[in-house]
């Protein structure tokens, strides 16, 4: 009897192991995420229809809005908020569709979006020092994106010469007044307006 029990127990365990393994494979695919992505995309498409012409700008504008929110979280030294907004930005970036631009613009835009997405995703999982490092490159990506897509907003390119061991760091803002996302409260007003876009 005991041997039977033991055998049954062992078989049960082997089954459990197999099930666990197949579950592990199943999780890898994670069908849930892309689906929510599609929903997001649909919403964006609706907006696009309403906007009629300038459809691409609506999406670029949504990306910029997410970027500005992220910047504000960094200004406020808010690590967890920045994580959240980094992930939001990554989602908006992924739903960007460059198809209405010329071939060379598409190449450039897709390259920018791919790069920016990676930085946004890293911001979604890092401490604040790392978030700011990624934000510097992300800001460059955003600047290059706006150069192609254009925008209806007035944007200020601002610059703090002290960030990154005095190598400097630029960022974009909707307000002319300086609020430094690289130093936060430590040096809130360090920086100057470098350029006005629009």
């Amino acid at each position, binding site marked *: 009897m005991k041997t039977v029990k*033991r055998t049954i*127990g*062992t078989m049960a*365990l*082997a089954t459990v*192991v*197999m099930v666990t*393994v197949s579950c592990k494979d199943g999780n890898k695919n994670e069908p849930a995420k892309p689906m929510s992505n599609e929903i997001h995309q649909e919403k964006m498409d609706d907006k696009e229809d309403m906007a009629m012409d300038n459809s691409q700008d609506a999406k670029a504008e949504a990306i910029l809005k997410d970027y500005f929110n992220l910047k504000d979280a960094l200004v406020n030294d808010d690590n967890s908020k920045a994580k959240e907004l980094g992930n939001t930005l990554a989602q908006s970036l992924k739903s960007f569709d460059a198809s209405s631009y010329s071939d060379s613009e598409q190449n450039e835009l897709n*390259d*920018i979006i*791919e*790069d920016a997405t*990676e*930085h946004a995703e890293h911001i979604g999982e890092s401490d604040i020092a*790392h978030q700011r*490092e990624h934000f510097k*490159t992300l800001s460059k*990506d955003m600047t290059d994106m706006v150069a192609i897509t254009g925008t209806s907003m007035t944007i200020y390119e601002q610059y703090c010469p002290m960030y990154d061991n005095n190598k400097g760091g630029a960022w974009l803002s909707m307000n002319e007044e300086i609020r430094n996302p690289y130093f936060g409260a430590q040096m809130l007003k360090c920086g100057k307006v470098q350029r006005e876009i629009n």
Partner: protein
Amino acid sequence: MKIVKIIAWIALVAFVVIQFFPVDYNQSETVPQTDFMLVNNVPATVEQSLQVSCYDCHSNNTDYPWYSKVQPSSWYLEHHIKEGKAELNFNEWGNLSDRRKNSKLRSIINQIEDGEMPLDSYTLIHRDAIFSEANKTAVIDYMNKLKDSLE
């Protein structure tokens, strides 16, 4: 006592069973033209450091240790290598745009400077993968130079 025996048996059987699960080994005979070493003019010492400390998880060819043949450690390695390659694959360096190269170089420099790479769990066994101070400086200097040349 009986319980202990039973648990030991179960563990043993489970251990044997999982040995039969297949693993994707990350191995490739050829080095593509897009490899970091072929695209760039890398000094020999830096090349050596990168090969020893980075290429196991950041290229298409891993020099597997003996325990990679034993489960569950092969799953553990498989997972790490997959993640490592998704983040950066030195074999495909030439396929990246300047913008992407710049971002990758930035991350490489930061991670090595902060001592985050190579991973502690990797250097625990691969003692030779730990950067000496001289090697670390040489690698970072080279990466910085490469980055400046892109900007």
